[in-house]
């Protein structure tokens, strides 16, 4: 009772304090508590504020269980915050929306459907119609290098290709925001590096706002305009670092770049608990 009251008071204070209007996504005083079967409820997110500009590529890094995925689920409208508000382009997020595309850690394709049927699922459910988007989806497939694979089934594709199908599917409704939850976590290191380059290419071509969760520091610095570092549970933002590396970034050049090395070292320092230089 008492705890809830203080949470509310603090949440409102924070919300009033940090209003920024130029952002596509605005999170204010987000609190998320999970009930557990045994014992104390777990505080997953503790008064978290963040903002993402239109067209920005933001990477979220943090230790496992820091609430990154919780944050993403809230943004996707799959879950509700216990306090605080999320807004997307000024509109409060209170459920799944066509303006948000989600890519999960697993490609989560439907194995009984072809690639084309999979990427057009978003146009056939939730009251959407296929006719006016068919050409755009074909363009997305071309950008993702999947043209010619429309009639293949997911099990005929490699893991990397399956994840690209999932990315195209997330973009099918032309959302404002693309959310990705460790999308390449299940891939091997080499494929992952290739997929990072692919994703950057798709992003440069589509210029969506992207929020990507990763536990790979190198991936975060390689892809992000900005890297948000989160603390261990309860999740708070401990630092936001702008990455000023030129685009398109190329793995062979970027990974050795002094800026990349410096930022990666700073993030590593933060995550290991020590103070960054």
């Amino acid at each position, binding site marked *: 009772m008492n705890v809830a009251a203080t949470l509310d008071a603090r949440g409102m204070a924070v919300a009033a304090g940090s209003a920024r209007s130029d952002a596509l996504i605005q999170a204010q005083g987000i609190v998320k508590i999970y009930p557990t079967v045994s014992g104390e409820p777990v505080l997953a997110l503790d008064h978290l504020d963040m903002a993402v500009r239109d067209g920005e590529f933001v990477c979220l890094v943090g230790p496992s269980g820091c609430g990154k995925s919780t944050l993403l689920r809230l943004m996707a409208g799959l879950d509700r915050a216990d306090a605080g508000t999320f807004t997307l382009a000024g509109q409060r997020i209170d459920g*799944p929306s066509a303006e948000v595309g989600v890519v999960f850690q697993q490609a989560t394709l439907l194995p009984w459907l072809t690639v084309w049927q999979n990427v057009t699922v*978003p146009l056939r459910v939730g009251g959407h119609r296929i006719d006016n988007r068919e050409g755009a989806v074909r363009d997305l497939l071309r950008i993702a290098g999947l043209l010619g694979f429309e009639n293949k*089934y997911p099990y005929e594709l490699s893991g990397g290709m399956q994840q690209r199908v999932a990315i195209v599917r997330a973009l099918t409704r032309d959302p404002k925001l693309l959310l990705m939850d460790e999308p390449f976590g299940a891939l091997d290191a080499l494929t992952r590096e290739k997929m990072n380059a692919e994703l950057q290419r798709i992003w440069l071509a589509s210029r969506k706002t992207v929020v990507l969760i990763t536990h790979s520091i190198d991936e975060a610095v390689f892809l992000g305009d900005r890297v948000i570092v989160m603390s261990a549970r309860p999740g708070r933002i401990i630092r936001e670092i702008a990455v000023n590396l030129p685009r398109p970034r190329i793995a062979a050049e970027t990974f050795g770049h002094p800026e990349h090395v410096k930022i990666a070292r700073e993030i590593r320092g933060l995550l290991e608990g020590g103070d960054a230089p």
Partner: protein
Amino acid sequence: MTDIPHEPSALDLVAASAASAQSRRRRTRLTNAGIGVAGFLALLLIWKLLVAVLQVPAYILPAPEGVFVALWSGIAVSPASALGYYLPLWSTLSNTLLGFLIGASLGLVIGSLMAEFRPVETALMPYAFALQSLPKVAIAPLIVIWCGFGDGSKVAMAALLAFFPMLVNSFAGMRSADIERIELMKALSATRLETYRLVKLPSAAPYIFAGLDMGIVYALLGTIVAEFLGAQEGMGVVITKAQAVTDVAGVFAVLTILGVTGIALHLIVRWTQRSLIHWVDRGQH
């Protein structure tokens, strides 16, 4: 162009290995078929020897050739003949299939509703458990009282026996659907029916086919049991008639026909499954 002997290229080796794998598979299949036939012949031989050596009377256990003669007398007649197997087999089969269709459809619908709506599950699960553990064949006399001695009770019995494996399997199959795929549909604001059609039903398909496979054989069993309890036609009636005159060879002949029918029904389901479920679902990916 002349044939110059040369080192085999990698491509040749791959082709050769594929060819040898194929011929190996073919040989394995031939060997298995051979073992099957040899086993069957050995069984007939042991049967024949036992009957001859122990001098078992024909009204206890007829010799294999006696069963063959009975079998032939039922097969080698006009399909319209009252003495042949065709009319009773058609009666049994049509009732089996009708009952199976009704029972399996009901099982799928109610299993789906139970998987989809918690209150339906809570309300129906105790009865499903209770009826499942009840030997359903014991209900047959009651069904004959309700539906009479005609086709009605046979269809009802077949439907009853086909219903439960379908209920249990479709329920388990729907519940086994991958959480992430359901979450995906939620993120796409799909309706319940869309999620059912696109994710849950296909996820449950392997379970549903296992239920169909069991259900079709149970439906045949149910029909025969209903025929035993007093019917005018069907393979069950042929058995009871043969039993009445201690024509044991005739009983064996009908059992053979029913066994082959059961296997054929099972194979039809399996074949349908293989042509319908073409995908490989590794759960994730």
